[in-house]
């Protein structure tokens, strides 16, 4: 049966129809706009409150804005879209729910913490590949202020951040997938879905350490199951391991028998300038990988500067309650192979 040909390993499936990434949009906050990738985002807003009353509403508006602009640019109507797959970091993924509520598009809410972009792309990609919809949107958001409020403390609290801490990206990213497209676009060829890994980390100010084993496991699974070497890809990029976490992944991948070269980097490590922006180990949050994908990466793929990208979003699964109760932080990572197919 056709379905059997699609699964090539325990974690990896091949999307035979190769859904096209027909559109993308990223909206980010001012700090991200001032960073090294500042001019690669579709839109930079000038105030983190985004003319709203609360951080949570601002985040929701960011989410909604990326989808709105994506639809306008693609010239599709909401009736054309079969599914929106998306999520965020907030309790009960309220940012996504309130953002999506006006669209009248069937919604699959997902929670993968910061791995949500790749997770949403995976689900949307599989839905389109299986023929359940011609078009689907994958989207996510995060907001520094709403994340601090939920996970850490009030913004004005005079506490010191350790050097392993990361800065939640304020922004959103939305990607439009199409079963067929009128012209050549980057295509999703494979999806590698990660398992939850518990490596005994319980320091909420050191996410990179918690997620690195999961990222390694997913990248290694993808390479083993596809039979591809790391050099096959022009870019292997993880979501938000930061400078410390990505360094750890290089070491862990060596143990797996893979040497990651210059083609490996991390969205969190490149989205901010730690020296001038005070972001310690780098960016984090769902919007970290989402905003870098839906601008910097996909634009370069359209220009053929990159032709084969392995995009891995990494998530730290926990809650403020689970931390207080002494539970470890779980890690998960999902990978999506995006290629320019001739």
């Amino acid at each position: 049966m056709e379905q059997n040909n699609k699964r090539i390993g325990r974690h990896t499936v091949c999307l035979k129809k190769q859904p096209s990434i027909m559109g993308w949009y990223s909206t980010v906050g001012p700090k991200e706009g001032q960073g090294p990738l500042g001019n690669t985002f579709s839109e930079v807003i000038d105030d983190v409150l985004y003319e709203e009353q609360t951080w949570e509403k601002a985040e929701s508006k960011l989410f909604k804005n990326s989808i709105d602009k994506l639809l306008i640019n693609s010239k599709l109507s909401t009736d054309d879209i079969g599914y929106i797959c998306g999520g965020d970091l907030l309790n009960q993924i309220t940012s996504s729910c309130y953002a999506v509520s006006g669209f009248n598009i069937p919604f699959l809410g997902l929670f993968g913490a910061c791995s949500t972009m790749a997770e949403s792309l995976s689900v949307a990609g599989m839905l389109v590949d299986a023929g359940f919809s011609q078009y689907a949107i994958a989207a996510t958001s995060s907001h520094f202020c709403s994340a601090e409020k939920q996970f850490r403390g009030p913004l004005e609290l005079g506490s010191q951040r350790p050097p392993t801490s990361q800065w939640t990206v304020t922004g959103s990213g939305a990607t439009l997938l199409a079963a067929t497209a009128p012209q050549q676009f980057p295509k999703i060829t494979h999806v590698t879905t990660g398992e939850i890994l518990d490596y005994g980390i319980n320091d909420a100010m050191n996410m990179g350490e918690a997620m690195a084993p999961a990222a390694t496991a997913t990248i290694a699974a993808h390479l083993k199951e596809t039979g591809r070497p790391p050099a096959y890809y022009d870019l292997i990029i993880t979501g938000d391991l930061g400078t410390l976490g990505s360094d750890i992944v290089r070491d862990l991948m060596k143990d797996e028998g893979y040497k990651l070269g210059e083609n490996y980097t991390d969205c969190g490590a490149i989205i901010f300038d730690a020296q001038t922006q005070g972001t310690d180990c780098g960016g984090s949050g769902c919007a970290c990988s989402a905003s870098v994908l839906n601008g910097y990466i996909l634009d370069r793929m359209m220009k053929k500067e990159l032709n084969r990208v392995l995009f891995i979003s990494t998530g730290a699964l926990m809650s403020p309650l689970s931390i207080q109760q002494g539970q470890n932080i779980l890690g998960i990572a999902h990978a999506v192979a995006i290629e320019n197919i001739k």
Partner: protein
Amino acid sequence: MMNKQQYKEYLKTKEPKTNIVKNCILAFIVGGLICDVGQLAFNIYKGLGMSKDSVSTLTSITMIFIGALLTGLNVYDVIGKYGGAGSIVPITGFANSIVSPAMEFKKEGYIFGVGAKMFLIAGPVLVYGISTSVVVGIIYFILH
């Protein structure tokens, strides 16, 4: 991949070390400066000829006011970034720990937001500080 124990050992070699010497010096300087301001206030009130109790109380009130004001003006968190314990430990830090959640949770309203969550950070200090002083008081009473 290495197991949990091996990973923990490996991480010890990777984690960036906090510059304890630099942090201690900064905490000392910032904490010292805050105490200098307190001493200045104390001297001013004493110079006005007030009673010992009034001088102490007014000094505390003044320092709490400064902590609250700087929190409201978005300045105290910047001081805390560099000062660490030097800005957390003095009474100004205590004011900051109450005013900052009050500001943050205003969006949830005055009852369930400000009212309920104002003591989110300072709560343990109040509970254990007051409880300890009650215990000490009982011990003192028994011994005397």
